[in-house]
């Protein structure tokens, strides 16, 4: 029996309104590659943030090599031998490879940095792992895969016993993934443990020794990879009953409103679909599947290279959101703070912003009418506020989302795109937003709902399109919905024949 390098037990973490971790745990043996799996929002990243000291747990204990430790921050974690390699790398691009590896731990010669020694050390390290990278090269000249390798080297040179890799392959090519896996094998030989987070099932079976599955912030099970097959694993990841918080009501589905043909962009290819009047079309996929990018293109926030967008049978040319809004396509973006609301301005100003033309009276705005209509629509959406002059930034997430909905539904749009409409919103407000969606559909709006929460998409949509790696992977009608089929399709289309 091998000893455990890391034991995290009974970890609890509550965010306002959400229990992100509920008695979560993970046990990692020395020199093992341990995959951490679960759906979006299962709590994997939160658990790793606790391990890394970015978050402090409310409860629970972390033991490293049998000793209980407290991790105050990422620097302390690194000192204790826990290194984390993030999905988004941020090296200092204008410094050299050697400087990046030894940053914060520079070799000194008196008062000055010993450049020669650090370069020699870096060279030796790179050679040991068979990497053909010049330690004197600037970081910006490296590929993303190479930068990732440098991050790993940095972790090893600082004496890491445990390296956490969060979706390390998401931006790598197949060739680069092979190299990465070789390096992980070498790490194993050096008795370094790896916690590997990935959405790709195949990778887990290729590289991992053991798997821990999480769901809804809770620990589900840990198994050796040899005793597992893909279906069991998916079963473990999904295995939840659909609760009935989705007040889906049937709306009359009419003619096609929005039709997209062969749309291409930087991170998606050949996207074609249609949405009808009164229909709620779900767009499901794992994080990074390219769903948001497709709709940012349709809404004119990103530019694209090819394809056609038709509204009511007429082709549109959209290069700015203004064009989309004018045609009747509106979008509730993924990040309210980033591009949904002007937080330092009032609720009224936010609701009125895209609708100011309505209130134009000569050169000025008709303030009375604006106030009246804003109050009406905010009332319809039941925005809880102390007054229209309250600042948008003072509202809770759910109420902010309702303000965003208000601003778009003032003028009757034809297509409503909702990107993660319930993210960061408490359960009560979620239900209200679902109810509003049903009502909009009844009024004849065509709705697209992008979501990473499978139960939500299954509960609310009439039809679902699955995206993965920038392409459409499948389509399901409401009567065909089955969690494992959908998840399989999202994880990798190839598995479909087997199941």
């Amino acid at each position, binding site marked *: 029996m091998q000893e455990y390098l890391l034991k995290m037990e009974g970890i609890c973490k509550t965010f306002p309104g959400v229990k992100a971790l509920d008695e979560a745990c993970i046990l990692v043996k020395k020199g093992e590659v341990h995959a951490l799996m679960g759906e979006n929002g299962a709590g994997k990243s939160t658990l790793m943030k606790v391990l890394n000291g970015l978050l402090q747990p409310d409860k629970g204990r972390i033991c490293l090599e049998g000793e209980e430790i407290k991790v105050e921050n990422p620097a302390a974690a690194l000192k204790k031998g826990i290194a984390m390699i993030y999905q988004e790398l941020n090296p200092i691009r204008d410094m050299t490879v050697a400087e990046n590896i030894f940053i914060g731990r520079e070799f000194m010669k008196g008062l000055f940095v010993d450049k020669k020694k650090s370069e020699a050390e870096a060279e030796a390290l790179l050679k040991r792992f068979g990497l053909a990278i010049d330690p004197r090269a600037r970081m910006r000249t490296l590929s993303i895969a190479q930068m990732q390798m440098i991050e790993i080297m940095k972790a090893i040179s600082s004496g890491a016993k445990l390296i956490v890799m969060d979706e390390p392959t998401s931006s790598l090519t197949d060739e680069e993934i092979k190299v990465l896996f070789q390096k992980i094998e070498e790490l194993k030989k050096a008795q370094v443990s790896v916690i590997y987070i990935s959405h790709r099932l195949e990778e887990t079976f290729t590289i991992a020794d053991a798997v821990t599955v999480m769901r809804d912030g809770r620990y589900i099970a840990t198994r050796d990879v040899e005793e597992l097959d893909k279906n069991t694993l998916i079963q473990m990841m999904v295995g939840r009953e659909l609760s009935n918080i989705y007040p889906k009501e049937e709306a009359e589905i009419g003619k096609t409103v929005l039709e997209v043909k062969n749309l291409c962009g930087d991170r998606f290819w050949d996207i074609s679909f249609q949405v009808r009047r009164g229909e709620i079309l779900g767009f499901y996929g794992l994080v990074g599947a390219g769903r948001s990018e497709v709709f940012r293109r349709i809404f004119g926030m990103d530019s694209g290279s090819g394809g056609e967008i038709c509204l009511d049978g007429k082709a549109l040319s959209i290069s700015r959101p203004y064009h989309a809004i004018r045609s009747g396509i509106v979008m509730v*973006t993924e990040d309210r703070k980033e591009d949904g609301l002007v937080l330092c*301005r009032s609720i009224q100003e936010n609701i009125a912003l895209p609708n*100011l033309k309505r209130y134009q009276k000569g050169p000025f705005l008709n303030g009375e009418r604006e106030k009246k209509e804003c109050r009406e629509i905010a009332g319809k959406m039941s925005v809880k506020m102390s007054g229209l*002059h309250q*600042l948008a930034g003072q509202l809770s997430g759910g109420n902010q989302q309702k303000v965003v909905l208000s601003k778009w539904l003032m003028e009757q749009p034809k297509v409503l795109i909702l990107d993660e409409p319930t993210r960061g919103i408490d359960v009560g407000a979620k239900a209200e937003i679902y109810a509003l969606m049903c009502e909009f559909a009844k009024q004849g709006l065509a709705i697209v709902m992008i979501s990473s929460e499978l139960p939500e998409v299954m509960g609310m949509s009439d039809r679902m399109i699955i995206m993965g790696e920038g392409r459409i992977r499948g389509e399901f009608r409401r009567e065909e919905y089955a969690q494992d089929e959908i998840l399989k399709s999202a994880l990798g289309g190839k598995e479909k024949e087997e199941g």
Partner: protein
Amino acid sequence: MKTEGKFLKRENVALYVRNYALAVIFIFVCMVFAIASPTFLTMTNIIGVLRQVSVNGILAVGMMMVIITGGIDLSIGPLAATAGVVSALLLEKNEGILVPAVLAGILSAAIISMWTGMLVAKMRIAPFIASLSTMSIAKGVVLVIADGVPHTIKDKTYTNIGNGFLWDPSKTGGLSIPIPILVFTAVAIVVGVTLYKTRYGRHIYAVGGNENAAIASGVNTVRVKFCTYVFNGILCGIAGIVLAGRITSGQPTAASGYEMDAITAVIVGGTSMTGGVGRISGTIIGVLIIGVLNNGLVLMGVSSYYQQIIKGVIIAAAVLLDMKTKKN
């Protein structure tokens, strides 16, 4: 509608407190000077202060609009000088064409500010750098036009814009309104109405508050930013005319360094440097505080060296106040 007014007050307590706090500071400063110097509260001195703050006031109001969009304009001094020189030169060559000359002066400032507008809005260069470029260009342009020398303005009406009164003060025992104050008031009203009552004004706040959200709401942010720099250029032109009238000549180096006074007044007035927040009333009080400080310190015989130090401390104190009221 009355309840709405009350609501408005309760919701914006922080903002009101800040505006009142500024007013309180202003009154306090006035009181200190009134006690320290017997001449401070005389009619002549008050009128003198008001006349002096007018040019900075017009510039500050324009600067405030630019800052609300999240930008800054360092080129306002040379822009004002351009307007003065262009109008003075035209009058020198053709006597009696006051109105076209003044309009041409203002227009020339507006045209130069298009350079900043284009660099910032279209080319997305940082406003600080873009306006630094314009500042240098405008400084050169105005020296070329003026051939490096001041041009005297003989037109009585023109010099009255800077020095005149609404009615003759000698008949009312020194009580009158200087023309520059009228110009400043008119500019403040126009800018206030633009900011609060027009679509463009709302767009200015949205662009500065969250540019991405503004774009996603269909606002043409490029146009809004461009127009704001040009609008500011027009105001610089007007300020330049008032200044040229007061010093009775178009000087190529007039108004140099005025950008710092304008920025100071705007910040003291509670406008957020990150954009999106700012009120005309705050800026006016900011202008008055700076003006009274300048005047009172001179009356008290404080050397100009110390004046600089005191002004610097005031800026820091105002910004600290700004941050504190925002947190609550």
